[in-house]
């Protein structure tokens, strides 16, 4: 009973925290993007902008009843919000993957990523196939494990940011985006997942801060 009462507040805090942390990554890397016009940096920061959109829309859908809107419009807005959550989820995952794959695969472009995400989002939403999210998540995770193995065999580096991206993607796709896991998961596991996701975002924020601070210190 108690858990049911505090659960919406925890969800609210979690969505807000991830929204703000994602936006922070986007704005912290702004100067670097303007300075370098590097494609990898552009994909990286855009991925976090899309992540923030995912959590903004999730937050809005969740709190629709508290907004001052006509009750008959609520179902339509909820459906539109859910579609946008699915679309931005795919777009953010693909854009994050593109941030380190763009050199190898020249066909990657913003328009293609957006079109592919739109297509898969339509399939998932209109055919009501949440399983596509799960399958895609597993494929993305396997792909990242292979990439990490490839990186390890070349650089002999066990701890690499790639593992954190891998954790991030798994946390998002398997934990946050698949409705089945959210409904069936015990409250304690959900909290652990929330904390894990927040830790990944805080880690990335700190890592970016560290790179920027080193540059600023040299300037002083």
């Amino acid at each position, binding site marked *: 009973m108690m858990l049911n009462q505090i659960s919406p507040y925890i969800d609210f805090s979690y969505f807000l925290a991830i929204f703000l942390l994602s936006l922070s990554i986007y704005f912290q*890397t702004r*100067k*670097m993007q303007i*300075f*370098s016009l*590097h494609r*990898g*940096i552009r*994909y*990286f920061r855009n991925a976090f902008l899309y992540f923030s959109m995912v959590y903004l829309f999730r937050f809005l859908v969740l709190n629709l009843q508290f907004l001052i809107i006509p009750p008959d419009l609520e179902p339509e807005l909820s459906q539109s919000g859910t579609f946008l959550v699915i679309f931005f989820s795919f777009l953010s995952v693909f854009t994050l993957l593109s*941030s*380190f794959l763009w050199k190898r695969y020249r066909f990657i472009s913003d328009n293609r990523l957006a079109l592919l995400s739109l297509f898969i989002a339509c399939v998932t939403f209109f055919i009501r196939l949440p399983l596509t999210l799960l399958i895609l998540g597993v494929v993305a995770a396997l792909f990242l494990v292979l990439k990490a193995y490839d*990186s390890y065999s070349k650089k002999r580096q066990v701890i*690499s*940011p*790639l593992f954190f991206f891998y954790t991030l993607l798994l946390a998002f796709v398997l934990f946050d985006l698949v409705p089945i896991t959210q409904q069936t998961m015990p409250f304690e596991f959900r909290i652990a997942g929330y904390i894990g996701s927040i830790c990944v975002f805080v880690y990335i924020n700190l*890592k*970016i801060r560290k*790179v*920027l601070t*080193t*540059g600023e210190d*040299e*300037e002083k």
Partner: protein
Amino acid sequence: MRHSGLSPQRFSSYYAKLLEKGFLEEIFVGEDRKLVVLTKKGAKYLRDYKTVLNFIREFEL
């Protein structure tokens, strides 16, 4: 010029551009001597460039 690995023509072109953009500055010492120094703007550019390179390496972009 020797260390840049560029042809004389290309070197002159890049050198002129760096002077024009204010990254380098020529200081004349006496009649026949000339010093080439990095300006504040040039030093800032190099620091920013290094930060970007560090970022790209850290995140394998």
